[in-house]
């Protein structure tokens, strides 16, 4: 019988199945960070258990780490304690790789896995972080788990799971100029809603997806969770294989050939049946900007903010009214008339080298608008930072009045000192525009890196396609 990619990944990891279909899935890669692991390590210790396979663990500190003045260490004592707890736990139990605070390869967990070749096709990848869906770009079954499950994986190398339904999102055609993977992700969420993918694993396919680089595919799979799907997937092709060649934890020599042959089988069979199929025309996707407090509250840059009365469902109508009030927006305001106070370029969604190149191309030879108080550029990892500096991107950003920072999660969720003040409005390349996400009372608009840079230059949202 024809199988979907998800079926293949699922079946190849089932250790045993309960009568109701609950399966014990074997986990190949366990990514660990400081926020969701301390209670798991503590639980393990209290129960007198040992980690099952240390070689599956790749760890880093990213959520709490500051993005400047690294020589001062972590000033917030509560953040520091969490990072030191990770240090102590990994020192005690071990790991395949640990990139601690200030290490040259430290960075956002979803950036460092792939760039080190620690994320390989056909793996199951878990992490106590919902954006683990990112790794699905490599045809991995990858999703976020809670801390109890982190402990379960540490202790047993397995996870108890029910099989998801499958959704195929097919994007055919060529993306327009100035339109990126981030815009595809936001357009998909605008179409199916933030609960549209609940209970599904989404496979992204079609010529527009095949045309994306691995970094673009990561951006897209990263946002699958914002559509409600725990896992996003893209089939293996030569782009995948080329990306992995020569990375530190990628196989080499004869093993490489064997691995690559196997990886090429990680595609959905041509006549595989999905539980749901969505077709999207690439050429119709425009640069997107969110206006509300849920990623589904999104419109093309040329549109205007909607009004509550546009929605029939009373719960939705009230949600829109509440979002507009929180965001300080009047109905029917054109997106391009909305001024921004801050700009954030970074996060596990958009902090890789290609994201920074695109933002730098917009910033080159320009300056941020006077009304924009701060533009933060936060690379996803130490390696991304070094690469960007070797290309001179840091100098382009600084000449434009942008701040060039050290790597980390930073203002995506504002667990460190980078945050919005109450009422401040931000054009952000991150993934969530929830109330208070970037700081209590802060107002987040999600956009692509090019659109974020364009907003920084214009002082308000602008269509990057209009820039000469």
């Amino acid at each position, binding site marked *: 019988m024809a199988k979907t990619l998800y079926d293949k990944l699922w079946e190849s990891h089932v250790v045993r199945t309960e009568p109701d279909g609950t399966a014990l899935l074997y986990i190949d890669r366990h990514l660990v960070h400081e926020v969701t692991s301390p209670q798991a390590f503590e639980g393990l210790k209290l129960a007198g258990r040992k980690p099952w396979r240390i070689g599956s663990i790749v760890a880093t500190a990213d959520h709490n780490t500051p993005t400047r003045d690294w020589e001062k260490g972590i000033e917030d004592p509560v953040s520091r304690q969490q990072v030191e707890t990770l240090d102590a736990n990994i020192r005690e139990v071990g790991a395949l790789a640990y990139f601690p605070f200030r290490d040259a390869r430290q960075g956002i967990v979803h950036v460092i896995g792939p760039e080190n070749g620690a994320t390989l096709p056909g793996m199951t990848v878990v992490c106590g972080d919902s954006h683990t869906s990112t790794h699905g770009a490599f045809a991995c079954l990858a999703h*976020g788990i809670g801390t109890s499950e982190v402990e379960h994986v540490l202790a047993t190398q397995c996870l108890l799971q029910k099989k998801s339904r499958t959704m195929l999102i097919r994007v055919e055609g060529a993306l327009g100029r100035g339109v990126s993977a981030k815009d595809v992700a936001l357009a998909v969420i605008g179409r199916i809603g933030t609960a549209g993918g609940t209970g599904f694993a989404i496979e992204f396919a079609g010529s527009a997806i095949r045309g994306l680089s691995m970094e673009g595919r990561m951006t897209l799979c990263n946002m699958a969770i914002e559509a409600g799907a725990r896992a996003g997937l893209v089939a293996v092709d030569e782009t995948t294989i080329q990306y992995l060649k020569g990375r530190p934890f990628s196989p080499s020599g004869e093993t490489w050939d064997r691995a690559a042959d*196997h990886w090429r089988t990680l595609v959905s069979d041509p006549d595989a049946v999905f539980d749901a199929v969505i077709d999207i025309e690439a050429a119709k996707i425009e640069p997107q900007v969110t206006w509300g407090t849920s990623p589904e509250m999104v419109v093309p840059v040329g549109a205007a903010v909607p009004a509550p009365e546009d929605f029939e469902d009373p719960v939705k109508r009230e949600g829109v009214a509440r979002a507009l009030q929180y965001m300080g927006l009047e109905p029917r305001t054109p997106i391009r008339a909305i001024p921004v106070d801050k700009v954030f370029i970074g996060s596990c969604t958009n902090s890789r080298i290609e994201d920074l190149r695109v933002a730098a191309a917009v910033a080159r030879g320009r300056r941020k608008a006077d009304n924009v108080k701060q533009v933060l550029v936060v690379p996803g990892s130490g390696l991304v930072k070094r690469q960007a500096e070797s290309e001179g991107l840091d100098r382009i950003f600084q000449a434009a009045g942008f701040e060039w920072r050290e790597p980390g999660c930073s203002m995506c969720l504002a667990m460190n000192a980078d945050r919005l003040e109450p009422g401040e409005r931000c054009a952000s390349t991150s993934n969530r525009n929830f109330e208070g996400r970037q700081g209590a009372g802060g107002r987040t608009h999600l956009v692509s890196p090019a659109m974020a840079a364009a907003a920084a230059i214009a002082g308000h949202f602008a269509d990057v396609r209009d820039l000469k």
Partner: protein
Amino acid sequence: MRAFTVHEGLVAPMDRANVDTDAIIPKQFLKSIKRSGFGPNLFDEWRYLDHGEPGMDNGRRPANPDFVLNQPRYRGASILLTRDNFGCGSSREHAPWALEDYGFRALIGTSFADIFFNNCFKNGLLPIRLPAAEVQDLFDQTAATPGYRLKVDLEARVVVRPDGRALAFEVDPFRRECLLNGWDDIGLTLRHADQIRDFEARRRIEQPWLFA
């Protein structure tokens, strides 16, 4: 884990869709390395008029009188009524920890986000999905009836209203069994350690690059 069999308690309504885990427990409280003590900061940004940070004496902070859980009639609620997509966003288990620590034992709504839904079961907190019309009725009855209580019976898989009407719900048999008995997942899984070892040994031969 605390077992869940039958629970009868006061109902509070959370009448908004897409309540995300950042709203349930804001990020500044995620810096804790403990599993307990999150209850006083559940829904922190909605619940208090000032900005909350770890280490504050929450009893002295100004409560937002408009926030539903601060209304005297809902004090002591242990069942939360919710709308679509409750618990969306991050995988932080601090969200169910905060709900449980506050005193909630069951959540009743139309839909829950996947990871959050899963996390609830690991903490003796039962999320129940009911059809939209039944959830709407429960919202209406809660609003109209001060002291409105429900009985949740996991063994029988029903929510029983004060008028005696029983609303049936579905739950995975395996999850139900674990929750009814308060079983520790890890202990259960480790009974199959030999099978895991066999699987791993095969995998190591077939795909050695995964074990580099």
